């Protein structure tokens, strides 16, 4: 694993802002969890608590017009790219103000206006899409890169391998970022994969450079993504980053995650991405009061978001029959 770089482009002020962003995501996920328990969120949720540094660090290193594709565990990516906690929570709560008008739900948060081109609930399906967006960016000459975030479980599905191969052959400006939280749903990834690093160890067979990084250190993530994006933009093709991390909740709402050894959980909780950021902030001379203020501001944002989502009108039933086609309608026959 790459050690934290001695020199990073991330200074104290920016790091404090990133910390606050992570705190907002952490509190929004907690709110989603509580709203679920209160019966106000139906279906399921796949909370990203513990994964915040990957979304926030990557986003800090990307251009605003770059493209991001995420998975059904994608709340953090939607928010890191600019979706508001209020519109995300409203989506989970089936409200008209939801970011997808309550037609997507927790697993499909999308903020296209911010280049966040979707959360996909079929494992691995979006890796070729990210390659396609990168192909499009290259053909249009925009200098944009595309990023696919995916779990460790996706590395054993065909679309992962098809996407890596064609992205390498066409030297596409795409980043494949694996959020390796050690478990494909309930099963340890190591017990179903023959190599130690499920994404990074496969990359060389496609001729793609790869790096295993600490996914809980926002600075490490930002630096690695910055290097990979620069490489992609300069025409040198894709990079695989495998960011090791850990879920604070189970796989989905109904999973208590009892299959994870207690000692492992304790060890990873000691490596909480927010705590790691605080350690770095302290080392940079940022006073504890500033961190406390950031926490306070984050709490305020999420409290207001919950209130706004609760107060929002329910989804309009008429919306059920709109937006199948580009003309806004759903007519399929005369």
């Amino acid at each position: 694993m790459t050690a934290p770089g001695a020199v990073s482009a991330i200074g104290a002020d920016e790091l404090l802002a990133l910390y606050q962003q992570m705190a907002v995501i952490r509190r929004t996920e907690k709110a989603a969890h509580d709203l679920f328990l209160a019966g106000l969120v139906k279906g399921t949720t796949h909370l990203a608590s513990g994964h915040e540094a990957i979304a926030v660090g990557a986003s800090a290193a990307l251009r605003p017009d770059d493209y991001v594709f995420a998975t059904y565990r994608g709340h953090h990516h939607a928010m890191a790219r600019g979706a508001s906690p209020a519109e995300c929570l409203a989506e989970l709560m089936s409200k008209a103000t939801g970011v997808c008008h309550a037609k997507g739900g927790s697993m499909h948060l999308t903020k296209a206006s911010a280049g966040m081109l979707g959360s996909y609930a079929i494992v691995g399906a979006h890796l070729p899409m990210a390659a396609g967006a990168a192909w499009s960016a290259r053909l249009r000459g925009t200098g944009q890169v595309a990023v696919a975030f995916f779990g460790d479980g996706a590395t054993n599905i065909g679309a992962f391998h098809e996407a890596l191969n064609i992205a390498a052959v066409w030297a596409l400006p795409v980043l494949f970022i694996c959020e390796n939280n050690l478990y494909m749903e309930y099963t340890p990834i190591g017990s179903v994969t023959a190599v130690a690093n499920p994404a990074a160890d496969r990359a060389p067979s496609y001729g793609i450079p790869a790096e295993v990084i600490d996914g809980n250190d926002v600075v490490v993530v930002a630096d690695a993504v910055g290097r990979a994006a620069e490489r992609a933009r300069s025409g040198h093709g894709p990079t695989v980053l495998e960011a090791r991390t850990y879920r604070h909740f189970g796989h989905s709402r109904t999973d208590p995650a009892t299959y994870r050894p207690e000692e492992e959980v304790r060890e990873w909780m000691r490596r909480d991405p927010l705590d790691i950021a605080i350690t770095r902030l302290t080392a940079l001379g940022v006073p504890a009061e500033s961190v406390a203020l950031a926490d306070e501001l984050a709490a305020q944002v999420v409290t207001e978001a919950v209130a706004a989502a609760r107060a929002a009108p329910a989804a309009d039933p008429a919306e059920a029959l709109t937006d199948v086609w580009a003309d806004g309608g759903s007519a399929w026959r005369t």
Partner: protein
Amino acid sequence: MADVITYREAVAEGIARELRSDRSVVLLGEDIGAAGGVFKTTAGLFAEFGPERIWDTPISEQAILGMAMGAAMTGLRPVAEIMFSDFFACCWDYLANEIPKMRYMTGGQVTVPLVVRTANGGGLGFGAQHSQAVENWTLTIPGLKIVAPSTPADVIGLMAAAIRSDDPVVFFEHKGLFATKGETAPDGHVVPLGQAAIARAGADVTIVGLAATVPMALTAAGRLAEDGISAEVVDLRCLVPLDMRTVLGSVGRTSRLVIVEENPYQGGWGGTVASIVADEGFELLDAPIRRVAAACVPLPFADALEQQVIPTVEKVITAVRSLTEY
């Protein structure tokens, strides 16, 4: 007299016209570049438009459709080729879960203007995994427009409409029609999606066909005319949008309906057409609706066996006669 071209040449011609007029149109697929496609339906395109517009892919159907989708969401109009429609099963996630749902799931934030072209249908002895008519597979998925032309001019006109459409379109090219000839289409020819054609006017019975079953129905109608039976042939051209106004109008004139479809009877598109006519046109009918569809078995290899399974002119004639006796 207008120039005559083959259905195969019409595919390349239709695509070339759009490539010339819109820089955002790009092609990807297996062997479509210098090789011109295994059915030669992209012949000449690589020479004219080069490697920045025409992209050869690995044998990676998921990557082909996934990349087309990502490109369509970000400003291009990709035309993806899946060599045989049977291979839709290799990339079904994109046709069933991704491409048709993205616009809806995001509350209209994203459009997916792409075309998936594919060689469809039987009659050429390719066996069970390279001969299927699978237009009914795609008909089960809301969010896909479905095109299946029967003539070279329609190939050109519908290709223009498909590529210009802001919605995802599945474009079925029938393998059995590639060598057939017809008039080409004038410059600027566009056939709007969802407009059926009356391929032959008649008074006694309506025969509804799609792609290869249209010329089959026309041949049957010609033979039936010798016996004094006047059959009207409706070429659906598209399954979505489905032009039921034209079908119901025709049934209103003839009071009898035979549907000729190459996909299996079980789950075939004719069941949808028949159910709408039964629901909304029941009082127009003087006889039951007959469906001539493929038998519900995998497609066999030998010609003699395949002809037993898929629709034929004889089967259409038999079905029509069974209704006119009513």
